[in-house]
């Protein structure tokens, strides 16, 4: 098992390097430091201000000469004294840098936003998961009936509504029709938090339900077609028992891997919902960063998101290997 774990970990190194390169290219080559400075300071910024900005963020040295991108060819400098190597070093030491807008360390901003984000995403994820599994089991149970057919169409319909419409409509209905407030804001004081998160969580569950139900239904249907189901039916197990005991156990492996892969992402929050409801989470942080053209935060967010993705992948592999010994031998 340890052997397998180390192998998976090593497999990720080249991918991490690739992600580092893409992030670096995005924020150094596609958008040059000079352009970012102008976007940040405004198009009419003086040369002096731009130079200062570049110097403070380590894009130019003391003499005002820009650092080379990849390899430093100057005589008295080390070859690795370049922008890429420096950003690699920062990424590898989990130094997320500072915000271009406020100068605050991004790590601190993320630490502050993680809890509010989790307050929204975690309940939405857990409740949504159970609802989706329940509904998809029901659809599989009544396979090929009108209920199944129309249920699937309903799921597709749910997937076809953009998240912004869900949020605008949900907020409007609760505020104007049910007279339920607050429709905006957040605090972290026991039960009053519930009032703030109820609506965003409901909207997140509703907006995600269609896609989830359809996905789980497909997973379970795949299992229903296997031989062991036919065997169980032939031996006289009831329809419900075949589905809930035989099929569900096997189908659950696929579901669990999906769940494990999604878990680390919960911390990233949600872009649209958070900013709509004024929840000071990581999604909101990102939305604000986009509005302020805060490339420092965006860069850190992209890197963090990729790390979490790979972490989820690693967890999935481990769960899979734990559940199924055949995997480790490959």
């Amino acid at each position, binding site marked *: 098992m340890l052997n397998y774990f180390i192998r998976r970990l090593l497999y990720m190194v080249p991918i991490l390097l*690739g*992600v580092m390169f893409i*992030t670096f290219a995005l924020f150094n080559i596609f958008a040059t430091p000079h352009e970012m400075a102008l976007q940040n300071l405004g198009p009419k910024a003086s040369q002096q201000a731009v130079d200062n900005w570049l110097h403070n963020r380590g894009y130019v040295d003391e003499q005002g000469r820009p650092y080379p991108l990849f390899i430093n060819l100057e005589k008295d400098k080390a070859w690795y004294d370049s922008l890429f190597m420096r950003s690699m070093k920062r990424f590898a030491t989990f130094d997320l840098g500072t915000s271009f807008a406020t100068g605050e360390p991004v790590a601190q901003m993320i630490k502050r936003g993680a809890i509010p984000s989790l307050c929204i995403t975690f309940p939405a994820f857990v409740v949504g998961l159970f609802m989706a599994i329940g509904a998809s089991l029901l659809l599989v149970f009544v396979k090929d009936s009108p209920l199944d057919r129309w249920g699937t169409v309903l799921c*597709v319909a749910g997937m076809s509504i953009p*998240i912004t*419409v869900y949020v*605008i409509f949900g907020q*409007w209905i609760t505020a104007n029709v049910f007279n339920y407030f607050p429709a905006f804001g957040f605090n972290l004081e026991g039960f009053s938090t519930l009032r703030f998160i109820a609506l965003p969580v409901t909207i997140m569950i509703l907006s995600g339900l269609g896609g989830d139900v359809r996905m789980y239904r497909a997973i379970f249907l795949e299992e229903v077609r296997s031989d062991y189901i036919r065997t169980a039916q032939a031996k006289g197990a009831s329809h419900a028992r075949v589905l809930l005991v035989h099929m569900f156990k096997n189908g659950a492996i696929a579901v669990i891997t999906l769940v494990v892969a999604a878990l680390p*992402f919960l911390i990233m929050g949600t872009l649209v919902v958070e900013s709509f409801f004024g929840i000071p989470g990581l999604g909101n942080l990102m939305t604000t960063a986009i509005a302020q053209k805060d490339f420092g935060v965006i860069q850190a967010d992209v890197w963090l998101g990729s790390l979490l*993705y790979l972490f989820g992948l690693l967890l999935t592999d481990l769960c899979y290997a734990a559940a199924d010994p055949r995997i480790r031998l490959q």
Partner: protein
Amino acid sequence: MPVWLNNLLLLAGCGVLVALVRGFLFTERSHRALNRLRRDRVGLLCAAMVVLFLLAGLADCVLVNPRQSVLDYAFRNVPREEGYSAPLARTTYSERGAKPLRGWHLMGTDLLGKDVLLQTLKGCRTALIIGGLTSAIYLPLGTLLGILGGYFRGWVDDAVQYLFSTMASIPGILLLVAVMMTLGKGLDRMAIALSLTAWIGLCRLVRGETFRQAAKPYVDAARALGQSQSKIILRHILPNVMHLVIINAILGFSGLVLTETILSYLGVGAPVGTASWGTMIDTARMELSREPAVWWPLASASITLFMLVLSLNLLGDSLRRAFDPKAA
């Protein structure tokens, strides 16, 4: 660009597209699938809806004179008003000093007094441009890489796998936002950004299917008969994975339209002045909080968008079922 050149290019583009799809659908399998689709009423209805949307989008691309498209021309008798007016109303929408309207508006008018129905229909063009440009980039890219990886295996496959696992490691929406911010606003830039995330899923699918197809006897037979690698790929593998590409293109289109609304909300979407559903929905945030609420631009844009996305999704499902009756 002169009017005739614009229209000629459009015509040529449509012709090439139809020829491509028809050319690739000549396998026996797709004949059977299309026959099955013919009996699928929901699928046909959705296909008709999609065609309607395409026609609306095209109507705004074809020009009658340098300043007017066919769509503008059709709406030439609909006058511009002075501000908001509700659907079918006779006066502008304000508590005091409501003025009589100059014309008749099925879906009302927006802040600038433009006809909402026209704006919504113009949104079809934006969606079509985004979807079309993105598909034109990512479909060939994803298919080519997927086939190369699945057919040649070895180091080619390793390289392809490395490429898509690396790109997949960056969460899609974050990558989109980052690329849009570094490239700047614009429909063409948006298409590039969207393609960067869209090709991954297609490449995975095509690679897997190519693996399966390459192991089949007909490929061995072609090789034994001395066909060149490129011919085997183009004449034998490609037609057999083409249905995946078409289904992916249809489902992908609906995904692109939905993503555009998120990008517009985040402020990195369609440039100012482009009529897009995303921007209409985004503006609706402010309009709904007015008293009394202005709801028709939101309703018009989101219902139209919903119809298109729903039709695309259901059509994609129908096609998948038609091509693979056992799996769906």
